[in-house]
């Protein structure tokens, strides 16, 4: 990643994401979108999947978007963006439109891990110059907290309830980054709303690579009602996700993997905060037993082991 912004003061004062939209107080995705658009600037076309951000920002006759915005449906934002990108390319080539606009998808975890995975894979395979940003709040929050492929193991949701036989989500979180990287695109990165400078630099870097092909950014974006925590804790919880090693920050840049601070120190487990610090603040994990927590810890260790092997091979 190139360092376009070093401090928060380097970020543009311009706002492309208007106030007054209808997201919940403390909405993580809303914070993500604000940073995304600041970093991307005005010459961008946004394609948004159905989800929290879509329904809260485009309530007719109002819009929160001061960049061109298209919403088509839930599962097809990557396909629609493929069309936008192709149109820009050919209309430019034919001299019909004079524009350098970049195309950016903004989609949630449901629209990416699950229902939109096919369209995303198609877009990546075909090599469209589109930045796909996944804002991951780890469940179908728009429909009222149902589990998705991005929901973590043991998390409570309304479709992975805590009962006498099953206690939260039975399965583990899908490794979307590995799926994306498997398409051998120029650039993929994780980011976190608690690290806005890192996020903004990744967005700029990704946009600069679009002439070569697709880019992907996976942004962790906590959800107060869905994760069951007080709304003023959003950024703190997001930060803990990275500090505990649950959500490492890294980039896949032209076949090389690079870990960003603070995650670059987290191969050493002692440098990571205990996972309990992250879990105990969230009601969706309130039912966890000591054993469950050990299990989660083990899974995170395994994940870091996998990442270490990746770093060794592709660092």
């Amino acid at each position, binding site marked *: 990643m190139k360092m376009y912004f070093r401090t928060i003061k380097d970020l543009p004062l311009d706002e492309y994401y208007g106030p007054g939209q209808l997201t919940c107080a403390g909405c993580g995705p809303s914070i993500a979108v604000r940073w995304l658009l600041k970093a991307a600037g*005005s*010459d*961008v*076309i946004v*394609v*948004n999947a159905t989800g929290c951000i*879509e*329904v809260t920002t*485009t*309530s*007719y*006759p109002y*819009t929160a*978007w*001061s*960049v*061109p*915005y*298209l*919403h*088509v*449906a839930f*599962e*097809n934002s*990557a*396909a*629609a*963006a*493929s*069309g*936008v990108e*192709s*149109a*820009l*390319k*050919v*209309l430019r*080539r*034919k001299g*019909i*439109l004079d*524009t350098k*606009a970049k195309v950016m998808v903004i989609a949630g975890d449901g629209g990416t891990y699950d229902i939109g995975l*096919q*369209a995303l*894979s*198609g877009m990546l*395979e*075909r090599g469209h110059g589109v930045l796909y940003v996944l804002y991951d709040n780890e469940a179908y929050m728009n429909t009222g907290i149902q589990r998705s492929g991005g929901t973590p193991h043991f998390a409570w949701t309304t479709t992975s309830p805590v009962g006498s036989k099953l206690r939260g989500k039975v399965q583990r979180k899908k490794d979307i980054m590995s799926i994306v990287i498997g398409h051998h695109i120029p650039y993929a990165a994780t980011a976190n709303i608690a690290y806005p400078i890192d996020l903004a630099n990744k967005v700029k870097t990704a946009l600069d690579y679009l002439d070569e092909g697709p880019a992907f950014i996976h942004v962790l974006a906590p959800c107060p009602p869905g994760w069951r925590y007080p709304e003023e804790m959003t950024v703190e919880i997001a930060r803990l996700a990275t500090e505990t090693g649950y959500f490492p920050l890294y980039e896949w840049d032209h076949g090389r993997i690079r870990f960003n601070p603070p995650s670059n120190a987290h191969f050493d487990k002692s440098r990571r905060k205990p996972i309990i610090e992250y879990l105990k603040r969230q009601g969706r994990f309130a039912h966890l037993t000591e054993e469950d927590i050990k299990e989660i810890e083990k899974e995170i260790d395994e994940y870091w082991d996998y990442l270490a092997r990746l770093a060794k091979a592709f660092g």
Partner: protein
Amino acid sequence: MAIAKALSVREEVVKERLGLTSNYAAAYAVKSVDVDVIAAYPITPQTTIIEKLAEFVANGEIDAEYIPVESEHSALSAVVGAAATGARVFTATSAQGLEFMHEVLYIASGLRLPIVMAVPGRALSAPISIHGDYQDIMSARDSGWIVMIASSAQEVYDSIIMAYRIAEDSRVLLPVMVSYDGFLMSHTTEPVEIYHEDYVRKFTPRNLNRHRLDPRKPITIGVIASPDWYYEIKYQVINALKESKSMIKEVHDEFNKTFGTNYDIVERYMIDDADYVLITYGGASSGNAKEAAIRAREKGLRAGVLRIRLFRPFPTDEVVNAIKDAKAVAVIDRALSPGNTYEGPVFNDVVSALYSRGIDKPIISVIHGISQRTMLVDDFYNLYKTLDEYARTGEYPRKTIFMGLRGGEA
């Protein structure tokens, strides 16, 4: 004189006469309008359209972006995105593919995007059948698209050119489907007269003066509407489709003038004095009906055919005017509306058109050619004889007739 004039126009505009299937004719039409973005996914019997277009692109004969998508859902989604960016777009599909697009069909019309799609009609699963009928089109009927159904390869070529002009008209801004018989037309070679491209391009000027994604003038497309707004916005689509009929007729007139053709939104065949009328759509039904009408006339029956060329918006006045003086009418449907009072979907349209003008007359619903079940000219000829009998006795069946059905009630 009119014929001589049409012939001289033809001489001027026609570049070459080729042997083309309806699918290839569709591809040639798309080529001639300087299309920008094609999104395509293979499905029988549509596939040869997108193969031909891929060849055109590979040979540099079309300067377009060809998006080989991973599904029909993405095909329509991609052209929605491209059309929303201002591009001229094309996609094609059949049957299961159209069903897979279904969700996006309504979005394309709701967003008022000028998309053109070719749909060689095919039966729907299950059981799976690759063969032709019009079940797929009927399932897309209420999606707010303009739907034309052609009956020859030449008409497919001409209709797709017209479709671009209609779809992009600022007074219309609706997607257009051009359908025709799967296999019986999509894979049958007929002579097609291809026009000089400059005439086609002049007939289909680009309209960039429409809502589109442009950073210099940012707009939001694809909003959420509360119950306070949804109804009114949806009504605009309904109204646009209804209003589009006069624009479609206008485009037909201008097309006829420019290219020396003689299209109307319905085709009237020996109908002016007809006592007995078969109402049809598509190639095979209409061709058979015309043959049968000639034969019936030889036997002294005043037989005629009304072919519905524009299916949505429905040509109510034209249909009523064509059959109001007929003694008996049959509507041949190559599609089904299961569970309805009558199972022929277009029959129901015709009856409601007649009802709207207070006309009641012997009219029967006939299903034929399902999954390309062979339709014989004899079948249609016998229908004329039956209609004669119904008219004379005043007795006629008040339920759908399933023609050609083994062990059924033909």
